[in-house]
């Protein structure tokens, strides 16, 4: 059967605002399938975002959706989760929103290991404002504010999340559609901060400036870049040059923040 996405989407909201070939729609489908896999009750699911193309995602989904200010999604989500820990909380947004203006909130949500799932769509660019370089624009690439090539080094978002303390970190690409929902579902099931980085394409503001001739070529690149972690372990270092590891990169059991705070309440109440 064709997958039933319609029951998760607010009536009348399609077509969405994303450009032709933008991978955010593929990610949204994956997120819907993951929420279905985990049987999330949408009345008790908060989907929180910041500002940017990827942050428009929650508006399409029939749930408790919160489109906040630029960079602040993780902090708003932390308030929601702390105040109502019984809610499932999903954050979505882009690389600029999450790791530049929102970088501090991102790393501290990871550090607290608060139980939420952060779906970070990394398309290497600020798309909504017209293609300025982000902390994830590859060095040397063209953006509207790097006409001579980007002099900045990049963030490895997954490594950043692991270093900051997130207890579940996974990565895939918009090409690997079936892996998107599997990893997000694993993240939702995981008790703690789960970061799912999805390498994505922005044909309009990144692809055109960087000599990609088509959306399909960008998709092919995502396909070629990805090496599953298990396969990578068997490959020599030179074969991994320019590649990115995909799959579950890190998973550990460690105290979750709202559970820790429940203990604080017990202590305060003299239990």
């Amino acid at each position, binding site marked *: 059967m*064709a997958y039933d996405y319609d029951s998760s989407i607010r009536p009348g909201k*399609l*077509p969405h605002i994303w450009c032709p*070939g933008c*991978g955010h*729609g593929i990610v949204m489908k994956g997120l819907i399938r993951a929420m279905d896999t985990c049987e999330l009750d949408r009345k008790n699911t908060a989907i929180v975002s910041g500002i940017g193309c990827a942050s428009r995602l929650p508006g399409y989904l029939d749930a408790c959706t919160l489109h906040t200010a630029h960079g602040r999604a993780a902090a708003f989500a932390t308030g929601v989760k702390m105040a109502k820990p019984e809610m499932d909380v999903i954050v979505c947004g882009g690389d600029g929103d999450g790791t530049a203006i929102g970088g501090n909130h991102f790393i501290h949500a990871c550090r607290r290991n608060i139980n939420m799932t952060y779906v970070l769509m990394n398309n290497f660019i600020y798309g909504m404002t017209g293609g300025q370089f982000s902390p994830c624009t590859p060095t040397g690439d063209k953006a509207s504010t790097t006409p001579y090539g980007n002099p900045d080094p990049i963030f490895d978002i997954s490594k950043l999340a692991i270093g900051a303390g997130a207890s579940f970190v996974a990565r895939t690409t918009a090409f690997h559609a079936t892996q998107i929902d599997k990893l997000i579902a694993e993240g939702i099931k995981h008790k703690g901060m789960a970061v799912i980085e999805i390498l994505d394409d922005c044909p309009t503001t990144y692809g055109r400036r960087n000599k990609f001739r088509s959306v*399909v070529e960008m998709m092919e690149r995502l396909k070629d870049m990805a090496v599953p972690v298990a396969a990578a372990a068997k490959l020599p270092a030179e074969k991994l040059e320019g590649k990115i590891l995909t799959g579950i990169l890190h998973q550990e059991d460690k105290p979750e923040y709202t559970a820790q705070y429940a203990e604080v309440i017990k202590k305060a109440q003299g239990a």
Partner: protein
Amino acid sequence: MSSPKGEVEIIEQYCKGCNICVAFCPTNVLEMDLFVVKAAKPEACIACMQCELRCPDFAIKVHKKEA
């Protein structure tokens, strides 16, 4: 030729003509027609779901046919 395993439904008003589905269909069922996809060879569909999974615009549904 065996009968198609799936029926491709295209929601034309959602299609933005990105060409992803056309490129990744393993049996070349799909074609672009003035920036909107159409099922040019519907009989070749093997219901692999690649086009539905990768369509960013919710514009393709593949209905699997009972064997």
